[in-house]
């Protein structure tokens, strides 16, 4: 009536639990440490891979966004720093527009409105400081946007010659130099992210290999006994591989969850802030595939490094 039986088999009663390992690898404090370490590695690797992927996406967007786009800058102040009359400026702009429309290599040419210029500058200045209801109050140059059919050096030379005739102080910007620098910077950052990923992978391999060899040393007698019973190296190795698989899977899930929460939190924090300076990033299927693949890669590497480390040590035993 009032009797209660233990629902779970209890080691303290001297009754064994379900047989899982021939070598008691599932016991011991090192297990928690290794799980936490792998969780941290998965977290860092996911961040690196995400960063590399996002930078790659930004670089692509910058490249495609500026492909075939040139800009002409027409200063609104003269050599003495005096503001030019708006009427003169408008006349010069009209001349430039008419001249460029004659070029076959120019598909479309238009002057950027004050609102468009204001939007471009708003990330760096308070909007109120740039313009008011009467237009732009800062001496920002007039910007003329060109959509190009051809973007060769010859075309650029011809346009510059034409500008020389109409407005010698106007400047043609092909966006090449700063885009090159930006792409070089993102390329370097991507490389750093890839290197960090490789370093983390190497650290993971060494950590798991070291942990497995120390577990082998801890259970040397049991391993030796299995050998004496005729266990092949692969039989013993499989036990360590399974142990590495379970531990790294647990660590990978923890790392994945933490990283997903971190990225979600970062997304909430940056919501609405980044769009004006950075292109928007919408993760696609490839990104999610890479994101999900990272934990599997870590688990695979852990199992392989466990196998390598254990077989190395077993080869030295009789």
């Amino acid at each position, binding site marked *: 009536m009032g009797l209660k039986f233990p629902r779970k088999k209890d080691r303290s009663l001297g009754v*064994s639990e379900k047989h899982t*390992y021939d070598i008691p690898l599932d016991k011991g404090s090192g297990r928690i440490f290794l799980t936490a370490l792998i969780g941290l590695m998965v977290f860092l690797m996911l961040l690196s891979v995400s960063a590399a992927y996002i930078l790659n996406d930004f670089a692509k967007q910058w490249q495609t966004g500026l492909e075939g786009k040139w800009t002409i800058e027409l200063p609104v102040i003269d050599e003495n720093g005096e503001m030019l009359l708006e009427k003169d400026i408008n006349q010069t702009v009209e001349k430039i527009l008419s001249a460029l429309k004659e070029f076959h290599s120019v598909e479309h040419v238009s002057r950027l409105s004050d609102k468009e210029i204001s939007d471009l500058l708003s990330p760096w200045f308070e909007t109120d400081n740039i313009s008011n209801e009467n237009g732009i109050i800062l001496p920002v140059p007039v910007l003329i946007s060109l959509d190009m059919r051809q973007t060769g050096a010859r075309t650029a030379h011809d346009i510059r010659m034409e500008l020389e005739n109409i407005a010698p102080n106007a400047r043609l910007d092909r966006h090449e130099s700063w885009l090159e620098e930006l792409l070089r910077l993102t390329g370097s950052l991507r490389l750093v992210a890839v290197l960090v990923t490789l370093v983390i992978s190497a650290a993971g391999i060494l950590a798991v290999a070291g942990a497995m060899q120390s577990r082998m040393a801890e259970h040397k007698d049991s391993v030796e006994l299995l050998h004496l*019973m005729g266990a*092949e190296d692969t*039989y013993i190795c499989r036990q360590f591989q399974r142990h590495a698989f379970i531990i790294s899977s647990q660590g990978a899930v923890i790392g994945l969850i933490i990283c997903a929460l971190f990225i979600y939190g970062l997304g909430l924090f940056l919501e609405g802030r980044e769009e004006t300076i950075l292109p928007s990033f919408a993760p696609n299927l490839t990104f999610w595939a890479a994101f999900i693949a990272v934990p599997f890669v870590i688990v695979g590497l852990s199992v392989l490094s466990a196998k390598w480390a254990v077989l190395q040590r077993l080869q030295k035993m009789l």
Partner: protein
Amino acid sequence: MIKFENVGLRYGVGPEVLSDIHFTLESGSFHFLSGPSGAGKTSLMRLLYLGIRPTRGQMAMFGQNISEMNRYEMAKIRQKIGVVFQDFRLLPHLSAFDNVALPLRIQGKKEKDICKNVEELLKWVGLGDHMRRLPHTLSGGQQQRIAIARAVVTKPRLLLADEPTGNLDDEIGYKLMILFEQLNKTGTTIVIATHNEQMMDKFRHAKLVLNHGELSVETPRIGKIKKILNEVF
């Protein structure tokens, strides 16, 4: 089946603990291994169960030269050997059942067959009610019976036992010797290292006698003559 030729063994740079060991064990033979403490019985047993390699001489087991074997062949040879260790060497986290089942699992037997064989054997050695107990909760005698059950569960071609009846009462010890004899009748070669003169007298088999690292072989008849001579003089 087992052939030792001029086998010598030393640990590190120490003196030889076994010198010029020369003997042959035929398939299906039954031998006691005796000798005073420190004579090298355990070292000889370790050589026989391939726990160590000799430092000199030739050892052949089941027709294969040990020095020419690769790791895979060595494992396969070990699967033909059952060993009862003096200190039992049971795995403390495994139940009596799982300890006995271990050699069968290593050999890749089906779980259904393992259950049947192990349960049967544990009942036979009187541990049918203790199958799920961990070794540390069992007495020394019970642990020894588990160790014996583990050694014989695969019906090995060679059974090596180091003081197998040391912790057992006479009745259980006698019963286990009967088990060894039955195994021997089915073709298993048996070597039992023991100090127990009574047992050697009762079960009259050839003796390998080790003395100061040197081995001599005594058939039951020679042993009896020696005993009479010792009693007379």
